Each structure stands twice: as structure tokens, then as C-alpha cells.
């Protein structure tokens, strides 16, 4: 199986492009390198869920609309992991929701979502929190409008967003307080 047999069967034109069917992909996920031989068309979200076994990242819409698959790429760039092939993340760094709590202590974003009742069914929550984290990296002191705009790529059907906005406001306060207390963290 060296060619995209199925694509050819569908009549797709890959003239001049040699796409191997199986590729070896190495991705650093939450600090640990995961190397697997996978189909070249495997989406990043399926690599994370099925190859790395981290099921906190979800699939909701298949069209990059809902954001429940959001992870952070190379630091704090939020990406919808259903929009990328796993091979596109080869050699790069991915952070998922599983990286947030350390030693059983919730991250300030997690704590804020809990305190403010920013979740109900919990399905959008991991992606929502990863987007919130990226937003707070860019803008540590966001206004309500900044938050609503920053989260607008992540859908939620249960909470009505009020409490999610409040949670991000609480997290912003907690994180700026902790970085003020620890100058080295602010420089990081």
C-alpha cells in the first residue's frame, strides 16, 4: 500500500504528488513524544484520541465549526485538531486538556470553570478551556467583549456562555495574580 488507492478509486487527481499511505509521525503531546505509523490522512484529533489515548479532546462537528477538538500547538496557538492531519503536526508540540492539572491540582482556568459553573455536559469544556488559555496568553486582562470574541470559535449548547465568560474573567484575575507573585513566570 504505497499509493492512495481509495482516493484513486474515487477519481481524485494526485498527479505529480506522491502521498504514501502510511507515514511515521512523531508529536510531542503534553511533553511526551508519541511516535506512530499511521495513515497519512489521519486527522490530528484521531491521533491524539486513538494513538496517544488522550480522550479529553473531542469531536463534534467534522467541519471546524464547534471547537470541541481545540488543542494548543507550539506553545499557545489554538488549533482545531479536526482541521489538521496528524502528519502536519510531525515534530511539533501539542498541549491538550490533560496537561492542565498538575499533581491533582486544577489549573486556574479549570478551577474557574468549576467555581463559576462554566460547564454542564462537559463536552465542549476541554476545547473551550484551551481556547480560553490561549486568549489569556495573548490578552491577560480581557474585557467581556474580548472574551466573547475570543471564544466565538467554540460552541456550547448547555451553559449560555454567561458563566463561561465569568470563568475566564476569574481565571484572568487568578493568573495575573500568580504571575505578579512570581516574576519568573511572567517572563516565561
Amino acid at each position: 500500500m504505497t499509493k492512495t488507492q481509495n482516493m484513486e478509486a474515487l477519481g481524485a487527481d494526485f498527479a505529480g504528488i506522491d502521498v504514501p499511505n502510511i507515514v511515521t509521525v512523531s508529536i510531542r503531546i503534553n511533553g511526551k513524544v508519541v511516535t506512530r505509523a499511521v495513515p497519512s490522512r489521519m486527522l490530528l484529533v484521531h491521533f491524539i484520541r486513538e494513538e496517544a489515548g488522550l480522550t479529553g479532546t473531542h469531536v463534534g462537528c467534522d467541519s471546524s465549526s464547534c471547537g470541541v477538538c481545540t488543542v494548543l500547538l507550539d506553545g499557545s496557538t489554538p488549533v482545531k485538531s479536526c482541521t489538521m492531519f496528524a502528519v502536519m503536526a510531525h515534530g511539533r508540540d501539542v498541549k491538550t486538556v490533560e496537561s492542565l492539572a498538575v499533581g491533582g491540582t486544577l489549573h486556574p482556568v479549570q478551577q474557574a470553570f468549576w467555581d463559576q459553573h462554566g460547564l454542564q455536559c462537559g463536552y465542549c469544556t476541554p476545547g473551550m478551556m484551551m481556547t480560553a488559555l490561549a486568549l489569556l496568553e495573548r490578552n491577560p486582562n480581557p474585557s467581556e467583549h474580548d472574551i466573547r470574541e475570543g471564544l466565538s470559535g467554540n460552541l456550547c449548547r448547555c451553559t449560555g456562555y454567561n458563566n463561561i465568560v465569568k470563568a475566564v474573567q476569574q481565571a484572568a484575575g487568578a493568573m495575573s495574580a500568580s504571575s505578579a507573585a512570581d516574576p519568573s513566570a511572567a517572563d516565561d
Partner: protein
Amino acid sequence: MTEIKTEQPEKMAMGRSMKRKEDPRFLQGKGNYIDDINLKNQLYMALVHSPYPHANIKDIDSSAAMEVPGAVAVVTAKELDAHGVGWLPTFHGLDKQMVLANGKVLYQYQEVAACYAETREAAYDMAELVAVDYEPLEVVNDPYKAMTDEVLLRPDREAKTNHIYNWNVGDESGTDAALAASDHVIRQHITFPRVHAAPLEPCGCVAEFDAMGRLQFYVTSQAPHVYRTALFMVLGIPEDKIRVISPDLGGGFGNKVPIYPGYVCAIAGALVLQRPVKWIETRTENMTSSFARDYHMDIEIGASTDGTLTALKVNTVADHGAFDAAADPTKYPAGMFGVVTGSYQFPHAFANLDAYFTNKQPGGVAYRCSFRVTEASYLIERAMDILADDLKMDPTELRRKNFIRKDQFPYQTPLNFVYDSGDYEHTMDVALEKIGYTELLKEQAEKRARGELMGIGFSTFTEVTGAGPSKHFDILGIKMFDGAEIRIHPSGSGIIRTGTKSQGQGHETTWAQIVAEELGLDPQNFIVEEGDTDTAPYGLGTYASRSTPVAGGALALAARKIREKARKIAAHLLEVGEHDLEWKDYKFEVMGVPGQSVTMKEVAFAAYTNPGDNEPGLETTLYYDPPNMVFPHGTYVAVVDVDRETGETKVRRFLAVDDAGTIINPMIVEGQIHGGLTEGFAIAFMQEIAYDEAGNNLATNFTDYLVPTSLESPHWETAATCTPSPHHPIGAKSVGESPNVGSPAAFVNAVIDALSPLGVRHIDMPLSREKVWAAIRNAEQTHPAAD
């Protein structure tokens, strides 16, 4: 939510905004949703869907699909028929539904074949390559066209007509006479469009026959026990050989009540191929497998010149799609549409409904509502505004004049419901005060003088929830009730199990609070388990806001049963007769001797170490069949600004004042109100499953079917009043659906109020910018003087 604290007595565990016990696992990505479950040696299933809304199937050729590396099998209706599982009953048992298209397809995206493969990708490849030869047929996607029966959609049925059923209730001749004698009558056609619940987690399942030949069925189900019994009915597998496990659900909203063809195909595949089979819906499959609403309603309301209501008459045409799969109990084929008289006193009323087949997806799920009550509430609340406008009355004054008064409960409506309790006027007064109605009216008058479009919209709805009393309610003939099991361990902690199933409503916290309150124990020390038919007591599941009214009642009564057993052990410990004890301040106390008491924790230990002559242990199971439904109500107010040039509506404020009876956890209640309002907002302004004339479904993903984001969703203001239900063990009603039931009318009434100076009387939802813009332009051309 300050009102809750003032109107509800202080409790130990109930009435407190306790943080949710279930949240830490969700926050850490440790939820266990359906696609997180993988069984050893599992196959993956994908479905083939029809591109045509109505077509004969001349041939299905799966040879190319079987060439895909990893292909295992393709199944069509022929194979299912050979096993006797080609058709499944719909939930109210009035129709049956094809599992895979049998001879012809009846709606676009109908399931035609199932493909089984070693991997997810291979299964989808196979589905692409199954060659189906279709012969397209004439499409009927308008229920008014279906009435003529020129194209018969369902030749499999004995009745050779597209008409499904007629349902009516009330006094038709009395209503007609009263309308004829009324000073004033309004008539309006109002459509509640076809919408979809769209939980973010699609539906799915994993089916396995274990070493003992027992079906282990993991599935996204709001009603696991009903699934078990239904699977026995469909598949003929003895019920003890079926275990249904519903894991964490990523939302449901009614979408996870039906049994979908994919489930039957996964089970059939697991049985025949002797390997576990997983099937997870794509978003498009989720969007095209069911729907809610699609009611086309004509309403007439009579009134005297002073605004006193005289009569109400409703004629409805319901578009049920290809199969009559509406989630309605047998005795209520149109669900609780009979609540269409709302919060008002109508001396005469009559409601009539005819349902028809069309070439659309089947369903009619109870989308965040109790079986058609959303349609009814929207209709009456919209119509009351039209009447107020015609009579030149303030909409709140028309409502106040006609409210059922608090001293009239229990109130028998002309359409056969008995409302338990309510204080509509008080709730509306709280809303008017909190929103600052007087100032808003002043501001509106000033804006109107300047030609600006500002609207204030009200909805003073009454819900009907708590399905339900077994005398009225069933699914597939199974009576509605709920079971609760409580086990108190020696150390005073415990486990609670119910037949309901949380989809995000916070049952793990709420149920613990109810039991803790009744027993004087710590809610943190209770585990709550739902969703496994091997361990949970039988129950009809979670939908139609029935969990707190039914399972919540069962839990409170089960806890009281435990308390009565505990009383005997307490009497033994205190060496007094059990009638000398009273349950006071959350402990057993010898009457008149305040120092002589034992706590439930002490009794729990004794139940296993020193029970005396009493039966050891402290456990019970109880089933609760409620005597009546419960009737939460509320007043919602929307304030909108409409841009005259673009038609864009901005919801400036929205206040929801809910009366859900006793509140168990105000934080959870408020969260549910926020979520329901957002879905109501979506219905009013964005969401619609639209079809083109050829029958193409135009809403198959989140780029076409619009779900509000944080950016367009309004900020929600909430408050509560408390009129406990007199017949419920803890006085609780319910709240999860109220905001979705009550809010669409408030939004639409606000927009129509804004446009009323132009002479606009009604626009059907969704009130998109384009539609509002067209209404403004049309009004300006029709009545240039209004400019």
C-alpha cells in the same frame, strides 16, 4: 437569584449553590463519552445515505465497497429482513420505521446500507463505494400538498393516505358560538419551524455480544431502561440477555431519546460478525436523523372590548416527515399541546390537529420541552400580543386581566389539564419591576418619535412537565414512573441510583442534595449512579423535564422510607419507643428531651453493628408514580433594538423570572436557564432545518444550521419566584425546559413590537436579518405614511 433565598426556607443541603460533584472529571478531560469506549477486536460501522428525498431503489451493488482493504461486510434491508429486524416500532407505537431503506427511500439522507470494516477510515471508504441505483420520485415536502394524497408516500401502511391522525380536545360548538358572540376576534397563521436539538456530542453506540452471548450495548441514551425493553421488542433477545449502558452524554436535549437505525445495524453486525461494532454519527448524520416541531397553526381568539378573553380555537397541521416517530405518549398523540390556553382563563377552547407524512426526516423529538408544549406556548404568547395590539391595550395589562388567579388553583383548564399551583401576577410584577418597565416605555416613546425601532416583548408562559402519571403517560406502552435506590453505608456515606440519566443537568449533585436533606447527611458523601440497566432501578429516563418531578420525588420518598427504618434503630439505641422520637434539626430526638438524640450517621453505623431486633442494613428501593404533572411558569422580557436600514436585531436586555417551585441548587437552576435561553434565542433568530423545493435538506452541518456563539448570545438576567407544587414530595417543579419553551415568544414579540409602528403584525421564525429587513421594506412600501 436573590428571590429564591427570601421565598424558600433555609435547608441543610437543599437550596444551596453547591458546586457540582461531577465537574472535576469533565474539567480534566476524564469524562467517559461514547466515542471514548473502545472494545478489543472492535469493528467500525459507517452508513450509506440516500442523496434523494424520494426514490425507488432498483439495485444496490456492494462489490466495489468490499474491495476496500479492511472491508468486512455490507448489510442492506434484504439481510435485515432475513433476520426479522428490517423495521422498528416508533416510540409511541403508532407507526413503524424502516431500519434501512426497503425498496424505496422517503427522505434525503435516509440510511440505505451499513458497512463494517476494521477501521473507521475503511468503513467510510466503503460507504462511498456502495453503488445504489435510484429512480427518483415526485417529492412531497409541504404538508398542505401531502393532504391531497396524489403521491402516496407510505404504501406499506394499511391506510392509503398521507394523513396520519387527527387529534382534538375541547368543546368545538361552544367555542364556535363564543367566538361568534365576541366583540372582537383575532385570526393569525403562525408556523413553528422545523428545528434540531443538535447536542455537541453526536449519537453513537458500541455493541458487543460477550462470551455468554449477552448483548452489552453502550449507547448515547437518555432512557437506558426503555432502550433495553425496546431492543427486546425489536430484536427478540430476552431482556436478561441485554445490558444497556449509557455513559457520560455530551448533551441530549431530546435528540438522544429515539432508537436510531444505526443502533439496530450495529447490534445486527455484532451478532452476525461475532465482533464488537462501533458506530458514531457524523455531524451530518446527527443533523439529518431527527427533528423537532414543524407545526403550522391557525389560531383564533375572541375577546370583549375590555380585553376579557372569551374563547380560543386552534387548528394545526403537523409535518411529521417520513415516519410518525414523534416522541409523544400514546394517550397524547399531539403531546401536551393542550396546554395552549397558557396562563389564561378561557371559558371556551378547542384544539384540533392533523398530522401528515412528507419526504422529510422523521422525528418530532421533545427538543428541550415536554412534547409539543413549546409550540403551544409560543402560539398563545404570540397571539396574546396580537390581540393586545388590536385592542390597543398594553400587553401586560391584557395578560393581568386574564391570568388564572392564585386562589383558583388547582385549576381545571378547558383542554383537560389540572394546573397544580402558580402566582402569575406576582411573577410578572417582579419582572416588570426588575426590568424597569415604566422607564423602558418612556424610552420607547422617545425613540419612536425619532423613527427608531425599539421593542419590548413579553412571555408569561405556563409549562407542563413531569411526565408522568402512569394513568396518562407511556412509551411503547411502558407506563411512566421512576425508581430510586438508596444504600447508606455503615459510616454514613452512601450510593444513590435512579432510572434517569443526566446529559449535563448535574444529577450527581442534585440527587445527593435531595437525599442528604432528607437524611441529615453530607451530600459530598454520596455517589450517584445512573445509566446502567444492570444496576439502576427501572425508570423512564431524562427528557421532558421529568427528572426532578418524577425521579426527584422518588428519591425524597425513598429517603423518607429509610428514615422510617432508621427511626426503629434510633429507638433501640435511645431505649425508647419509636413513637417517642421526632425527626428534628436533622436528627432523632426524644420528644421533649433535647439532649437525648442520635444522628443518622450514628444510626447508620448501628444498622450494621447493633440493630437490636430490627432488620440490619439501611437500604431501600422505591418507585414513584406521581399523581399529576407539575406546572412551572415564568415571565420573560426581551428588549430589542432593530436597525431600520439593515434589519439587524440586537437583544439589548433579556430578563427571565422563573417559578419552578422548590429549588434544589440555585446555581444549577440558573445555569440551565442560561442554556435554555440561548437555545430559545437560536430558535427565534437563527436555527431552522430548511428544505428547497426539490427536497434537499439545507441544514446538514454547523455552517448551514446556525448555533449561537458567545459573540451573538445576549447576556442573561435571571430571577425567581417560588410557588411549590402542592402534590410533589419536596414541592419541586422543574426548570430545564422553561427557558426554551418561554423565550421564543418573548424575542419575537419584542421584534414585532419594534416593527409595529410600521404596521407589521407577524413574522415567522427564524427572524433573520434578511427576513426582518424584507418586512421593514415591505411595510414601508405598503404604508409609506408610516415612515
